[in-house]
């Protein structure tokens, strides 16, 4: 390749005779970007992208979090303009809701009034029948313009090239031969890669390698050069950069994740800027390689058309979406303010037979209701499923710690998995054994997948896959060993438990979040325990009237062969099951020393009260109790009764769920068997419905919602404001669990309204990338984010209704307002209508909605 020509000109398929020098892009470049303003602009574009967590800890993310400073409708316009992404459903979806009665005429009229639209019946019908056009992005990239001119899929080509490169660069161990430039910054690595890569040339785009060589050395310079050469007007540079990033949105989200992780510990990570530079470098390259007068004209036109979306959603779309949301709001408001709920707001002073604390996850609501039905003396509580254990966790023998708490925070403690009642030597032996087994498994895997040995592997061991195929087909065996117990001898499995003690397992541990100076404390030190215990109990509003048995129930799912399995586990535990958190906190609260210190602080836990950790399997709706060995002497009858209740409640919950699973109207034992089969089926793409349907978040005493069928659609957080001195707990709820619920809600929302961009498409085409980074849909294309279609849609209809979260808080309005004013993030979510905020007045039983102007208005089911 000739390196002397800096920018290639005319060598391409349908070659033209235009001399490159005829079109001097620089002469038109009237825009000069200052370094500081450019930096701010790039930063702002990067901040609009939200992170994507890897599949081994697939946590929900609000895809619109980067646009939260914009009003919902404004953001809709932004997304339509920049990416052609809709923020509401297509018109026909609402028509269907109207025809089924899900959207009532009254709600529609009310919504019209709220939006200040006056339409008579005929005009309304016309508006409904008129299909709103799918928005098309108004901010064009060079590749889009060129595509329209030539008919070749240039955008797809560029995405493919960048995506393939990024997959190799970020690979976590799928490739046996790693990319040589992984240790260099992304942009620099790309240039070295692209200078060798012959694919663009083979595709008829010649001179790319020398063009790459001629690019500036620094990513920021490339970005500046592109903006300048492409004459992007200053007032639309923001949008242009945003559009460029969203064009490779999957990898942008991945790089945003890397930055997020570093930022939480005060570090800096600029892969996302590098990625932007790479995408813009492609713009430059295409523009230069394909210089024709037509392209010049088309591009000039593209950057000059008013940056306003003419095809964005109209008022009518928002009217329909609001009417859709009103329908749900009215229903839940009617239930929450029904007279039956008024009489029982005071918690009963009788000691409950059992207290059971569940995660706020919407799936808990079904089980709690079932448990209260079979055992009315049981009191259930809702709390974030990590139970206040701010920790990272080290499984036995692991050399990496893993996050085990909400991803918004940094861990304070490091807790190890340990063998119970074991000597140091015994633990060492167990770890050694696990290491040997894991190394053995790795060596076998290498034997299986190496080009030097895979042929002999097949001929000597391939026959074993005959029985394996049969076993996996019928659910008798698991496709691969369960990651939690892999390499642990079966006799040890029952003895594994997290320990609060400061233990060392003799090898170095990599932290989850690399703090430059500070190491997390190993174990939970004695001096911190009672403070933690106090904080947790107060946050659960559980400071008196303790039952003899108190369950702390984390949750997890059981599915096989499911790349998105961790997405069904506990989000508050960073995509792990809640088992470890529950066990850690139960141990903490059972500690006599902790109890003694708590008593000094005024929290008296009776001596006969025991905290019991448990795990709610959300696929099976079954609850497993842990660490109950010591209880048989003192609490045997309690346990026996509890087990019976849990079994009955599980049955009820499964019967309720069977509807959505398409196995209703069957005998209970048949349903049980089918659900069990589902959890072991390697071909099951609908193992459970996860958090589909979520639409409400209620922070109130359970008595407010007892007896209401919330259909597994509400996050329930227990909160009694009268016990909350200084309203610290309220502040915590509104800044953490409420935000997390918004993230989950919006992840589902975005995955439904724009699955192409914010969802991960069809599970049957998923192709896991880079070990466990994410999935491609099919051969390649961009990395996919969000939820697969099978988590949202059953093949006939959407199972999840795209509704913004309705937050109900039973606390004084003034305090809620104070917290909104104090926290910018909360204010943005509320006032920009990314959620709806309601206040429950516990004295009058009335419900008030907070409007964007900060005024509260009483609402009723007819509001």
């Amino acid at each position, binding site marked *: 390749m000739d390196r002397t020509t800096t920018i290639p000109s005319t060598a391409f398929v349908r070659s033209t005779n235009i001399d490159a020098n005829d079109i001097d892009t620089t002469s038109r470049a009237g825009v000069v970007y200052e370094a500081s303003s450019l930096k701010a602009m790039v930063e702002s574009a990067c901040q609009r992208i939200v992170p994507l967590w890897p*599949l*081994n800890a697939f946590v929900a993310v609000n895809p619109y979090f980067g646009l939260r400073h914009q009003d919902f409708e404004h953001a809709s316009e932004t997304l339509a303009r920049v990416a052609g992404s809709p923020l509401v459903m297509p018109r*026909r*979806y609402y028509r*269907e809701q109207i025809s089924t009665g899900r959207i009532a005429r009254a709600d529609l009229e009310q919504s019209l009034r709220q939006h200040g639209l006056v339409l008579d019946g005929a005009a309304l019908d016309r508006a409904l029948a008129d299909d709103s056009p*799918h928005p098309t992005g108004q901010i064009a990239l060079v590749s889009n313009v060129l595509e329209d001119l030539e008919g070749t899929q240039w955008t797809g080509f560029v995405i493919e090239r960048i995506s393939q490169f990024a997959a*190799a660069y970020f*690979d976590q161990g*799928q*490739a*046996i*031969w790693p*990319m040589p430039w992984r240790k260099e910054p992304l942009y620099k690595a790309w240039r070295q890669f692209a200078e*060798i890569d012959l*694919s663009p040339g*083979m595709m008829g785009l010649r001179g790319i390698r020398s063009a790459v060589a001629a690019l500036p050395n620094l990513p920021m310079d490339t970005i500046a050069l592109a903006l300048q050469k492409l004459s992007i007007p200053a007032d639309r540079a923001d949008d242009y950069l945003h559009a460029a990033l969203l064009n490779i949105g999957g990898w942008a989200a991945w790089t945003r994740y890397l930055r997020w992780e570093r930022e939480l510990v005060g570090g800096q990570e600029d892969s996302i800027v590098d990625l932007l530079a790479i995408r813009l470098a492609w713009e430059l390259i295409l523009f230069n390689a394909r210089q024709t007068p037509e392209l010049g004209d088309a591009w000039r036109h593209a950057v000059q058309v008013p940056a306003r979306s003419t095809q964005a959603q109209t008022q009518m779309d928002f009217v329909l979406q609001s009417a859709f949301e009103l329908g749900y709001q009215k229903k839940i408001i009617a239930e929450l303010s029904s007279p039956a709920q008024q009489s029982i707001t005071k918690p009963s002073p009788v000691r409950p037979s059992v207290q059971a604390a569940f995660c706020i996850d919407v799936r808990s609501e079904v089980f709690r209701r079932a448990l209260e039905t079979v055992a009315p003396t049981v009191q259930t509580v809702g709390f974030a499923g990590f139970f206040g254990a701010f920790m990272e966790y080290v*499984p036995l*023998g*692991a*050399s990496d710690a893993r996050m085990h708490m909400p991803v918004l925070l940094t861990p304070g403690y490091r807790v190890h998995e340990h063998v119970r009642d074991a000597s140091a030597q015994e633990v060492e032996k167990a770890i050694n054994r696990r*290491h040997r087994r*894991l*190394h*053995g498994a790795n*060596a076998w895997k290498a034997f299986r997948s190496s*080009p030097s*040995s*895979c*042929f*002999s592997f*097949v*001929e*000597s*061991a*391939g026959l074993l*896959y005959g029985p*394996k*195929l049969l076993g996996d*087909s019928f659910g008798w065996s698991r*496709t691969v*060993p369960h*990651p939690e117990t*892999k390499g642990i001898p079966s006799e040890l499995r029952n003895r594994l438990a997290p320990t609060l003690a400061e233990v060392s397992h003799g090898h170095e541990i990599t932290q989850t979040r690399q703090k430059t100076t500070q190491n997390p404390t190993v174990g939970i030190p004695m001096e911190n325990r009672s403070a933690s215990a106090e904080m947790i109990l107060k946050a659960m509003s559980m400071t008196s009237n303790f039952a003899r048995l108190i369950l702390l129930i984390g949750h997890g799912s059981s599915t096989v062969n*499911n*790349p998105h399995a*961790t997405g069904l586990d506990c989000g508050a535990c960073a995509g792990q099951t809640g088992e470890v958190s529950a066990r850690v906190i139960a141990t903490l609260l059972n500690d006599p020393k902790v109890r003694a210190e708590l008593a000094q602080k005024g929290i008296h836990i009776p001596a006969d009260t025991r905290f019991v950790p448990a795990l709610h399997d959300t696929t099976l709706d079954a609850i497993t109790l842990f660490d109950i060995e010591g209880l048989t002497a003192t609490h045997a009858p309690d346990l026996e009764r509890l087990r019976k209740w849990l079994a009955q409640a599980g049955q009820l919950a499964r019967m309720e769920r069977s509807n959505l699973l398409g196995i209703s109207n069957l005998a209970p034992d048949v349903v049980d068997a089918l659900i069990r089969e589902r959890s072991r089926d*390697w*071909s099951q*793409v609908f193992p459970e419905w996860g958090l589909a349907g979520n639409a409400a978040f209620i922070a109130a005493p359970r008595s407010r919602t007892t007896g209401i069928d919330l259909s597994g659609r509400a996050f329930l957080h227990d909160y009694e404001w009268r016990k909350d001195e200084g309203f610290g707990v309220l502040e915590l709820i509104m800044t953490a669990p409420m935000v997390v619920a918004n993230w989950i809600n919006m992840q589902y929302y975005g995955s439904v309204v724009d699955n192409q961009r914010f969802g991960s*498409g*069809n599970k049957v*085409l998923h*192709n*896991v990338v880079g*070990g466990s980074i994410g999935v491609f849909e*099919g*051969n390649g294309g961009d990395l996919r984010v969000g939820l697969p*279609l099978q988590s949202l849609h*059953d*093949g006939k209809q959407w199972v999840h209704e795209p509704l913004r979260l309705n937050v109900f808080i039973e606390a004084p309005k003034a305090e809620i307002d104070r917290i909104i004013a104090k926290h910018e993030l909360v204010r943005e979510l509320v006032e920009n209508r990314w959620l709806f905020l309601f206040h429950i007045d516990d004295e009058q039983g009335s419900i008030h909605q907070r409007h964007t102007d900060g005024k509260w208005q009483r609402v009723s089911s007819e509001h």
Partner: protein
Amino acid sequence: MLSTEIVLLSDLNFIILALISAVPLLLWMMGIFGSVLSDEHSQPMARLSNGAAALSFVCAALATLLYTLGGKSLTVTPFSVALPGDMGALALSLYINVVTVVMLSLVSFVGFVVSRYARNYLQGEKRRGRFYTWLNLTLASILTLIVSGNMLMFVLAWMTTSLCLHHLLMFYPERVGAVLAARKKIIVSRVGEISLLIAVLLIGSTLHTMEFETVFHTMAAMAGPLPVSLQWASGLIVLAAALKTAQFPLQGWLIQVMEAPTPVSALLHAGIVNGGAFLIIRMSPIMSQSITASDALTIIGLITIAAAGLIMLTQTSIKVFLAWTTTAQMGFMLLECGFGLYSLAMLHLVTHSLYKAHAFLSSGSVVDIFRTPAVRPAQSTPTFWQWLIVLAFAGLMTLGIGAAFGVTLESQPALLALGTIVAVAMTQLLLQSFKAGMGAAFIVRAVGLSALVCTAYFSLHAAFHFMLATSLPAERTANGPAQFTLIGLVMLTFFAILLIQQNLPNLIQYPIARRAYVHLYNGLYVDIPLSRLLQRFWPMKTAPYDQPKGV
């Protein structure tokens, strides 16, 4: 004709015949009559198809069992039409021998597993009913191909397989990638089919028969050099086989079928691509006497192994990685055929199918592997002494265990190449355990494991050799002048691959290795020209994106 022949059969052979006929027939019927159920009744369609696939596997397994109890190799022809020019006849004819029953059991088993898997996996897909129609027809075609005793019937079944498979590859016709891959497959398939048809006609006109069994006996009795027409025929057979098994550089369609649902990939990679090797095995009476064609097979296989083997090292997505390993494995099978080791190729075919079906169907589990606590090896590359010890040990072990099974180099020189490949594989396994740094006890276990693997290899080798002795031609005696060069090349290639893989961490410092990395990661670009040609001469309409399901 029909009655006399069948009446002559003993009871046992009659039952075997009935069972074997049932295997494809069940699926033909399900495929043809099941299509009335259409997409609205996809649940009963899925259940019935699962049942048909299960029943067809049971029949195949029973037939295999009865055959081992005392079946005999024979061809039954219930219906035939004589061809002009004394070329034999176009016949509906069943060829029953060990190869037939083994292949039938294998394919019907994989078919059953895939059919069952798809029932839940494609739940909610609009076109699930149609999927089952085409799955049943595709399976029926392959099973017909397997039982064909007549070469023309074989060719027809071969063509039908491609045509039915096309509908499975186009399960999502709105996906541009799917259409592109399916079109590549169309071109490759048609070329392969034409070559095969010509080859069969050449054989028919030379040997005056279309029956595989007659060809088998005629060739066994033939003395003197192979007639030129059969030389040509064998060349065309090599071409058809290489195209069917997605050999480098025409592997593009196989790598890109990830645009169809996972069960289609599993069926394709574990069932259909094997067609090429099966063709060679069926034609082995001719192939074993055609030195040029055999050498060509070896060379094609070896090039594919080297290219696909190195390319697969760099791949970052699980399904694409698996696809490249299939290409390499197919190359290996052709290589074995080229050396005349048909029974080994048959072993490879069976074991690879089972393994690859599982690998594809369980590809979603790869995340679990990355959720397991990571352990890191103590060293990144082996030391010189480790190399020396391990190589010597693996070589001696292979020789020793091979000798214990009566495999010696004098019996067949090609085994030198195969022995080397086993020794290289053992070296890989042992070096990996050295690098783990888990101490002597760990290495001793690894040694034990490698001895076990090696023993399994040679015992299966012996078992297949014994089992297939009557169904395959006697081992090739005529060896060409190029044989030792080829053996040397194979040994060299495998040593080179091992050396490269074990030294990857060091290679990074050489610019040439970095360049090689980029080219390999891009699949050596061989697919791009074909894609471009296709796009130019057969442009695709791209439909705008629509919500893919319901609503």
